[in-house]
């Protein structure tokens, strides 16, 4: 087979390109084109007509991009309806203009209803569920708790005496009641907090079970017992959490009863939101009434109150104004609770259910608050003091127990309340003595704007408060919270900060101090410059450094950093704060430190618009990045490394010294030393340096001066010594190739040679399988890709004068031959086949592409016949190898592979070989036949190949192809 002689076909790239170029066909407006925007005018106008207003249809076509989905679904598309609904949540003026187009008649209807309920609770009302967890987490205890459950003592004995006369139903109920009474009188002592929570949860479960098994009386008894626990203020620190747990049960109960009665007024089901008592049938009403009679006979005040509140919603079944009458009564009833803490939580529960069920009843909410003010003196009364002494609870701690409830009440009261009402409430709070507690809640719950405009007054009031009572730092914390959301008048800002900080800086306990300071940092950042922030930071450092107090305050300190980062996006300002880096030094726990660095880098990458060369930023960020980098160890997850590398890369990309290329390079040198453990960063650095070299070339317009030539050589040297430190073999290969290309472009021939040689010498190291995303994959595909890429680069690389002809190509092919390919793989042959086009391209008189100012082999050899003969010899060897392989395949029964390989060699011959040569011609025909012998080839491809040949044969110097064409027969598959 060695008899094959190769002759490359002469190519005229220019004319070929011209003949291959696609014509630009203008698209007519009416033509169909997939990329053209769709305008469905027809259905739009139909929609407008249905709505009965022409104006809306015209506005829709202009303002809204026509949506093919909505037009197809004839307007009732749920998604666009949803969009319309959410659009109308925003301010009304906006919704008017924007949603008319999208929303259909249904959406309009919904919006009308929404407007009707304007006084109801909107999304801006912070729901109870968000407070719940906070309370549970905050009010905990290590003391032992007890649950006291007496099942059934609230019913008088009188009814059971009369049992001879009562109906059967009542009797069974009473018996059931007796059963419970006997079995379940128990007291659970010495429960830890967790046990207690578990017990309550058990009760909740048994409530649900009892309900599900139709034991309504038992369910009611459980609920009564639970709410009775709320009258017990032993272990008072836990009371708020207890309240949360037990009201959960009450909520469940209220829901169960409501749903049951609701299910009774079936057919026709009135609409769930807006039914009136008239639509409810008698059975449902009677059942509901029965519940209320039962509750009314609960002996003790607190259970009666709580259960009735839980069932408040059920009043809707009875009368239209039932709720309206009940809420004031319940409000008054709470006055009967002597313990102020119990009373205030009962009010909070009433307000909560009131807001849910009847948010329009603002008056009762206000009444609740005023009643609270009326009984406020109780908090400092004798019985409370005695209790505190008994339980050994400090007054400030005791007062904070009130906060969640009063916050909640005030939040309900102040929600969308008129300014006048808020002012009145504040005035009334002011008049009371010991009002710090109220003041705190006012600042929490009232609108931030309201507080902000009166900030100076508040500071005055806070100062007037008794030191021994409610902790002042909490008061300032609450004020700071409001000021963080709303702006006080401009002139007052600095005095406010000064006054506030005067107090804050005197707080002794580091934990209290940082909790408060953290809040005020936001206000400071919002309104002041770096000078003030710097002062604040130095104060924090001063407070937190002694005794390493910062160790317990990492979350707060982190939040300080976060707040500063939200307001200071200009990093030159940020790092010019003297105290910022010392502040950072307080993060001494590695994980926290890295977290802070991450957030800084995150902000930097997000907000830094332009590349920087500011030495302050660079130094600081290099330090930050180094911290991140140094956190990497053997245990670091791959994912973490990736995200760290991403951030550092973002930083490196943002560094630019403009025309000062040398400085940039030295920065890269420094960065390489700093970030040596993160491979992606090294890769990025190499890319940066390569880019630098190309930038230099651009600046010099392609011709380097002596100085720039030295510089680009330095760049190449940088890459050359950096690449070997990478572990990923393909990164190395690709970077060698890329850097080689860059070196070549910069006329550094020996450097380019070195890169490419290095790439070739690395080739044998490529493992047969590599791990990708944790899975082992064969590397063959990647290797083939790389080799093809490499081959195409080799076209322009001039031969080294001292090495032989086609030194690199030969080297590569030798490596390919020696490489241990996978068994049964055709990869090697594929490489051989793909080397043929390169060799063919090299034998052309002028090359397909070249690099300016670099002489390729075309000029070096100038079409020397010896050179061409060398090429042809190489080709013949390759073809010989391929044919040998084809033969072995024929033996090995792998005919399918044989066919496809033969076909690709045929393609190669057709495209690049000179088929006027008889031998080549014959070989091509043989290959065609071989590939079609077994009928494994793709008929479609064959047909298209034949068409291509026919087309080529029409060209003047390709006439010989028509002979070939005659000899190629298409086998139909049998």
């Amino acid at each position, binding site marked *: 087979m060695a008899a094959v002689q190769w002759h490359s076909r002469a190519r005229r790239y220019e004319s070929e390109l011209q003949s291959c170029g696609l014509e630009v066909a203008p698209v007519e407006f009416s033509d169909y084109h997939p990329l053209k925007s769709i305008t469905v005018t027809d259905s739009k106008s139909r929609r407008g007509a249905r709505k009965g207003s022409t104006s809306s249809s015209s506005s829709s076509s202009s303002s809204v991009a026509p949506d093919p989905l909505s037009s197809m679904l004839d307007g009732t598309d749920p998604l666009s309806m949803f969009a319309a609904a959410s659009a109308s949540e925003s301010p009304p003026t906006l919704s008017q203009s924007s949603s008319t187009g999208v929303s259909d008649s249904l959406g309009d209807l919904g919006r009308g209803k929404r407007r009707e309920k304007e006084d109801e609770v909107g999304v801006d009302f912070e729901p109870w569920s968000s407070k719940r967890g906070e309370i549970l987490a905050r009010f905990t205890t290590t003391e032992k708790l007890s649950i006291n459950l007496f099942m059934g003592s609230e019913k*008088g004995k*009188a*009814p059971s*005496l*009369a049992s*001879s*006369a*009562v*109906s059967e139903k*009542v009797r069974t109920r009473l018996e059931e009641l007796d059963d419970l009474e006997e079995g379940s009188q128990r007291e659970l002592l010495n429960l830890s907090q967790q046990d207690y929570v578990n017990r309550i949860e058990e009760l909740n479960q048994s409530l649900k079970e009892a309900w599900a098994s139709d034991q309504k009386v038992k369910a009611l008894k459980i609920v009564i017992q639970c709410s009775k626990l709320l*009258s017990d203020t032993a272990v008072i620190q836990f009371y708020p959490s207890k309240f949360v747990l037990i009201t959960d049960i009450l909520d469940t109960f209220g829901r169960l009863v409501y749903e049951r009665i609701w299910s009774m007024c079936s057919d026709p089901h009135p609409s769930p939101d807006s039914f009136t008592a008239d639509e409810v049938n*008698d059975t449902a009403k*009677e059942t509901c009434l029965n519940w*209320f*009679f039962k509750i*009314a*006979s609960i*002996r*003790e*005040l*607190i259970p*009666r109150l709580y259960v009735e509140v839980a069932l408040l919603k059920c009043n809707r079944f009875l009368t239209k104004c039932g709720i309206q009458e009940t809420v004031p*009564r319940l409000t*008054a*009833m709470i*006055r*009967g*609770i*002597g*313990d102020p803490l*119990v009373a205030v939580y009962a009010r909070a529960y009433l307000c909560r259910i009131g807001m849910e069920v009847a948010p329009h009843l603002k008056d009762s909410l206000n009444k609740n608050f005023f009643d609270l003010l*009326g*009984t406020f*003196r*109780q908090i400092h*009364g*004798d*019985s409370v003091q005695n209790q505190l002494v008994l339980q050994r609870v400090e007054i400030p701690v005791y007062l904070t127990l009130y906060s969640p409830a009063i916050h909640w009440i005030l939040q309900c009261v102040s929600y969308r309340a008129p300014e006048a009402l808020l002012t009145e409430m504040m005035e009334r709070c002011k008049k009371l003595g010991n009002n710090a507690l109220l003041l705190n809640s006012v600042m929490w719950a009232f609108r931030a704007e309201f507080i902000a405009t009166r900030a100076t007054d508040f500071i005055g009031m806070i100062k007037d408060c008794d030191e021994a009572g409610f902790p002042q730092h909490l008061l300032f914390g609450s004020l700071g919270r409001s000021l963080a959301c709303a702006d006080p008048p401009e002139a007052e800002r600095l005095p406010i900060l000064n006054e506030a900080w005067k107090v804050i800086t005197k707080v002794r306990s580091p934990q209290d101090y940082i909790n408060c300071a953290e809040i005020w940092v936001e206000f400071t950042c919002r309104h002041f410059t770096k000078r003030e922030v710097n002062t604040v930071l130095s104060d924090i450092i001063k407070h937190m450094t002694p005794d390493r107090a910062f160790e317990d305050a990492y979350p707060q300190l982190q939040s300080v950093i976060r707040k500063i980062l939200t307001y200071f996006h200009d990093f030159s300002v940020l790092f010019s704060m003297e105290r910022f880096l010392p502040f950072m030094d307080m993060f001494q726990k590695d994980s926290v430190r890295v977290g802070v660095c991450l957030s800084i880098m995150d902000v930097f990458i997000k907000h830094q618009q332009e590349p920087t060369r500011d030495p302050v930023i660079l130094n600081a960020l290099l330090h930050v990045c180094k911290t991140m980098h140094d956190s990497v160890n053997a245990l670091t997850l791959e994912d973490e490394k990736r995200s760290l590398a991403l951030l550092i890369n973002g930083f490196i990309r943002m560094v630019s010294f403009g025309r000062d290329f040398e400085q940039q390079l030295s920065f890269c040198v420094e960065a390489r030393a700093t970030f040596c453990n993160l491979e992606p960063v090294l890769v990025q650095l190499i890319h940066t340096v390569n880019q630098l070299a190309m930038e230099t070339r651009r600046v010099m317009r392609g011709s380097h001066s002596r100085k720039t030539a030295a510089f680009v050589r330095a760049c190449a040297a940088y890459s050359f010594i950096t690449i070997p430190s990478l572990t990923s073999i393909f990164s190395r290969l690709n970077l060698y190739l890329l850097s080689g290309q860059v070196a070549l472009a910069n006329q550094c021939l020996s450097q380019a040679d070195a890169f490419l040689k290095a790439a070739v010498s690395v080739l044998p190291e490529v493992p047969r399988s590599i791990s990708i995303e944790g899975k082992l994959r064969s590397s063959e595909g990647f290797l083939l890709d790389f080799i093809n890429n490499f081959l195409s680069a080799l076209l322009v690389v001039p031969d080294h004068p001292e090495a032989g002809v086609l030194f690199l190509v030969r080297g590569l092919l030798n490596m390919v031959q020696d490489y241990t390919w996978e068994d049964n793989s055709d990869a090697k042959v594929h490489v051989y086949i793909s080397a043929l086009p390169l060799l063919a391209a090299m034998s052309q008189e002028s090359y397909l592409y070249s690099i300016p100012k670099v002489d390729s082999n075309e000029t070096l050899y100038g079409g020397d016949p010896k050179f061409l003969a060398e090429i042809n010899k190489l080709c013949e060897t390759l073809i010989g190898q391929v044919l040998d392989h084809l033969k072995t395949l024929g033996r090995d029964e792998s005919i399918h592979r044989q066919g496809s390989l033969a076909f690709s060699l045929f393609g190669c011959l057709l495209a690049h070989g000179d088929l006027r040569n008889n031998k080549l011609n014959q070989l091509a025909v043989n290959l065609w036949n071989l590939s079609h012998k077994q009928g494994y080839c793709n008929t479609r491809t064959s047909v298209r190949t034949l068409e291509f040949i026919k087309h080529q044969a029409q060209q003047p110097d390709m006439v010989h192809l028509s002979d070939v064409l005659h000899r190629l027969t298409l086998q139909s598959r049998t």
Partner: protein
Amino acid sequence: MNILNTKSVILFAFHICNIISGLLCQEVLAGVVAIVSKEAVQHQGITLTMEGIVNLQLSSKSVGVFEAFYNSVKPIQLITSNIEVVKQGKVPGGKTEIPFEFPLHTKGNKVLYETYHGVFVNIQYTLRCDMKRSLLAKDLSKTCEFMVHCLPQKAKLQPTPVDFTITPETLQNVRERSLLPKFLIRGHLDATNCVITKPLTGELVVESSDVAIKSIELQLVRVETCGCAEGYARDATEIQNIQIAEGDVCHSLPIPIYMVFPRLFTCPTLETINFKVGEFTCNKYKSNSATVCGLPMADRCDSLFLCRV
């Protein structure tokens, strides 16, 4: 109200419309008798019996244990009526519903009293449905109570507010008045003539108290009087007790008094020749943490007149 006869699987039931919310006197008691059976049922007639009875029982306290046991006063029949719904014959298989109506006509000049379940006086109305069957099969019977409300009063009630004051001096059943702590509670009831369907309301203010208050409770008591040969017996028993204040409540802040009259166990004040139900009274209890005598203190107050409008 179902009876399941296991042998022949007959579901025998009846249903009275408007049973729970109660009937006014002079209204018509209406409903259906339902018989559900797989096969046809042979019977000797289905009858409905309506009965209204006042049961009186003497308290052992007022007449002695033995008298109380033996001398129970004869029940007074207010109304009785019997109709045959279906004559002897066969009820076909499947579900058969037979509607019925009873006018509430009293015997002679007797008046229907409102349903009431007390301790010594019980006024109860029942409706019984019987299905007589041949000797071999058991008779089926089903009883059901129904409520009767008396006619609303024509005359309009004028609310008569009552003020009250409770001090150590006003307390009854206290021996050593001097040992009691000093306190002053004022208040008022909005009316002593109460409508039975409306709650009892009022207000109460703790003006002063030397010791911390533990609880303030409201007790509803009924007074039943039964007449018999030996004279009459008068007894007061508690109906319900409701706490209106718990713990040391805020002084000089009005606390609401609010009590719903329990159904069945209360009825409009009633006075007849043989018995008397009424004079509902309301007691206010006050318990102190540091009670000298160790007993809760109670203050009796104000008899109530209940009626229906």
